[in-house]
């Protein structure tokens, strides 16, 4: 039973490819696999922490002001992430830039707090947070990998084409993000139909 909460977010309800939530960071920071992974992990931390705290506080928060309360909880953890990343991973912090504070408005996090954590006990909420976070991280890393391989001829900064080889630069620029993401959702649709998930 509990395991289902965890696996839900990985594939069947993948936040990015199935529910299409949190598209802004997904498109903006996935110009390389490393950036996608970093953004995914930062989001996972915030998602896990906010799910945990919301599940613990759900009886204390009045129903009418729950959304502002959730936002304050989320914004607190985002500020922590922001400061930790600035101190320990300065390169990644620079690459992700404004999209770290913007985790606050990532619909995945508020969505899970509202739809899951406030209605469930602690353990399911934690599992749901981890599952959704890993699902989101996998999706961002996949998107980043495809764009990096096609656009730069490398993966996780390891180059496997000649230094002067011509790559499809379009894929690491803005249009490539939209097009790759569009095709990945289409592929998800085909797979869902084929395996009847």
């Amino acid at each position, binding site marked *: 039973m509990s395991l289902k909460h965890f696996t839900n977010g990985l594939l069947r309800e993948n936040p990015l490819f199935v529910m299409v939530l949190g598209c802004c960071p997904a498109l903006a920071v996935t110009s390389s696999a490393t950036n996608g992974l970093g953004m995914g992990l930062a989001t996972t931390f915030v998602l896990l922490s906010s799910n945990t705290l919301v599940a613990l506080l759900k009886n204390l928060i009045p129903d009418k002001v729950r959304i*502002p309360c959730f936002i304050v909880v989320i914004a607190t953890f985002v*500020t922590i992430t*922001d400061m930790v990343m600035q101190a320990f991973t300065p390169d990644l912090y620079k690459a992700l830039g404004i999209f770290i504070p913007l985790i606050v408005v990532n619909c995945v996090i508020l969505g899970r707090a509202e739809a899951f954590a406030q209605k469930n006990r602690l353990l399911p909420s934690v599992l749901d947070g981890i599952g959704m976070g890993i699902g989101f991280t996998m999706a961002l890393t996949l998107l980043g990998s495809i764009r990096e391989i096609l656009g730069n001829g490398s993966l996780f900064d390891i180059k496997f084409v000649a230094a002067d080889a011509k790559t499809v630069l379009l894929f690491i620029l803005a249009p490539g993000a939209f*097009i790759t993401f*569009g*095709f990945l959702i289409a592929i998800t*649709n085909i797979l869902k139909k084929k395996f009847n998930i």
Partner: protein
Amino acid sequence: MDYINIIILAIVVNNVVLMQFLGICPFLGVSGKIATSVGMGGAVVFVMTLANLVTYLIFNFILIPLNITFMQTITFILVIASLVQIVEIILKKVSPSLYQALGIYLPLITTNCAVLGIALLASKKDLNLIMSVVYAASTAVGFTIALVLMAGIREQMQITGVPERMKGFPISLITAGLLSLAFMGFSGLVK
């Protein structure tokens, strides 16, 4: 940097949706019809300009003097969320017709990352108060242009044969990709 530069940069060269990926959710969500996208665009212009004015004042006259700029994210999101509420209440009383036109789009704007994103970006740039407001207003105009363009294309797309699995999000995203490619043509416009 003069004002014309800021305006052209914000509207076409660094278009907020197609180049900076802010506000993708409303861009994909409410771009089905031209009429609704104009309504959403109007609401965004209104709120983004006002939000930027307020966050500029708070950042420069409260957060910096008190040396608590790390509270930026929390204060900005709370200010924007309550601002949207206040605007909604005031509009309802003062101008019911405008409320009718923009009303349903206002609550959606709280979760529009473009509003928070532009407030954060503007605070990182070295802009004075008027420049900051002009920057926010022209960014919002750029958002509206992208939204209306997209809605126009999607209205046409409804009568064309899109493959079954490409319907909905996939074809919209690929269309947005092509639009973004077109907007890249503006990149040399301003130095």
